[in-house]
């Protein structure tokens, strides 16, 4: 094949995927920016250019700040814990622990179930008076508490669900990484008399670093992307205590039908994701993972 023909051939192979990507990833990202500078079209009021008005109202919108703050706390609360649990699970399941097949299944099962379905189960779990949690705490003599209906406990209650759902997923990546570590390293360390903690700190953990970074990136993305449980369990309440950024975008865009303001909010979310992407390039790309 001549060079030009090869070029054309390659671009023809790319064409179907690229056109869909352009239509549903690149175009919407740009159109979103464009629409964020315009007003929402209403009856008798066509959309007009309003400059930074949407962003100005965003800065003055306490719910936006609340959602951003909640989302940051949500990320801080779920990411380190789910990663630590994932690592612990992976180490346990990788060891010759009795019944590790069943344990692996138990840890991993929440991952393959729809968030929407497990959120229903957890909703019942948290139900005041009737829920399992209430019954358990009640039998220990604790007073009844409305976990999802109280400002201070609603977001932590959602975090627990997220950690429960995600830890098993991240465990898989650690498990794969652990299995690729040569057993000779552990044998050598045993001969040298190194403690397990020392071995973990100086050998295993550093070797798992690329996996940790990979999992971390995924965890951050998920913290800003996964809001299904908010829809089922709290709808952003009580008093916006569980309002997360994407859920707020959904509310503004599809319950208040203010698509321009939703576009401005989406720009914030895209900016956060862009920062994550840049960090990923800064840390991960050095390891030439893509080659």
């Amino acid at each position, binding site marked *: 094949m001549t060079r030009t023909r*090869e070029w054309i051939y390659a671009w023809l192979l790319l064409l179907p995927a690229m056109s869909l990507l352009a239509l549903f990833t690149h175009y919407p990202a740009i159109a979103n920016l464009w629409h964020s500078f315009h007003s929402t079209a209403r009856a008798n009021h066509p959309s007009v250019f309003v400059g930074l008005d949407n962003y100005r109202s965003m800065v003055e919108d306490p719910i936006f700040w609340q959602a951003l703050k909640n989302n940051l706390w949500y990320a801080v609360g779920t990411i380190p814990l789910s990663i630590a649990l994932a690592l612990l699970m992976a180490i346990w399941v990788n060891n010759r622990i*009795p019944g590790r097949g069943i344990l692996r299944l138990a840890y991993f099962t929440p991952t393959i179930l729809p968030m929407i379905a497990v959120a229903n*189960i957890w909703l019942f779990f948290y139900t005041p008076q009737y829920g399992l949690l209430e019954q358990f705490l009640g039998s220990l003599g604790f007073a009844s508490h409305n976990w999802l209906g109280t400002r201070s406990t609603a977001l932590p209650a959602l975090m627990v669900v997220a950690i429960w759902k995600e830890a098993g997923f991240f465990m898989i990546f650690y498990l794969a990484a652990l299995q690729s570590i040569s057993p000779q390293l552990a044998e050598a360390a045993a001969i040298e008399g190194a403690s397990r903690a020392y071995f973990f700190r100086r050998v295993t953990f550093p070797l798992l670093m690329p996996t940790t970074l990979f999992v971390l990136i995924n965890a951050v993305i998920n913290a800003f992307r996964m809001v299904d449980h908010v829809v089922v369990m709290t709808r952003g309440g009580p008093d916006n205590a569980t309002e997360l950024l*994407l859920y707020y975008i959904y509310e503004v865009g599809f319950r208040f039908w203010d698509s321009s303001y939703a576009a401005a909010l989406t720009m914030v979310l895209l900016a956060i994701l862009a920062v994550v992407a840049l960090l990923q390039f800064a840390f991960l790309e050095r390891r030439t993972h893509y080659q």
Partner: protein
Amino acid sequence: MTARTAARVGPGARGVGLRSLETAAAWLLGILWVLPLLYAFWTAFHPSEYSTNFTLAAPWTLANFVKAWHAAPFARYFVNTVTLVTMVLAAQLVLVTLAAYAFARFDFPGRNLAFALVLMQLMVMPDVLIVENYRTMTALGIKDTILSIGLPYMASAFGIFLLRQTFKTVPRELDEAARVEGCSPLQTLWKVYVPLARPTYLAYALVSVSYHWNNFLWPLIITNSVESRPVTVGLQVFSSTDQGIDWSIISAATLLSTGPLLVAFLLFQRQFVQSFMRAGIR
């Protein structure tokens, strides 16, 4: 973790004690992890007066499932979900294969730029671009169809990336041998690359199916009728409308909607886990 500090790699009396402590902790966590699911099972299979009353004498029943099945068009929702998942996967496999082949084995101007544009989707996911994609679907006139749920996900950056990595490991000699035999590039792709990448395809397919079976927010937004709703949205519509909150029926509906996936997972557990592992290793 302090308990582990003293544990030695080699066995010893103290080491064994700590080992069993660790086993106990692992099992405790495991039980905690399945507890919500067991709870749902209990509630779904018993009459509602036993949903918070755990006695061995509680009678077992399937009535909750029957009630749930008749209370909402779950059969239709299942058909929709299966259609959606099949359609998305079929389109993904074709698009991803072609694009990955171009990136893996062709040298053309703009390749790096094109690849960077593809990778952008890993960050700017369709899950986030709901407002604009809704606008696009309205403009295309396909709102509230199964096609509109799947369309934004059909060109998958993750799939292109994953398959490109696999295609790159195919020895060039095989490729050249096929060309010498007179195969066109597409024939080479079909006869050499696709068969060699079978494990990657399986891994990708399982990840894709479970993702789209479980997807919720975008389908919730873009669908508005029984004819197009997948089972996740159907379940939400069912449990949020005033059912007089009967948890037994909601639990039954929840298990019902996750049932096929859960059974498939339990049957092919090893493949599932290995697929997720394979998909995660870069």
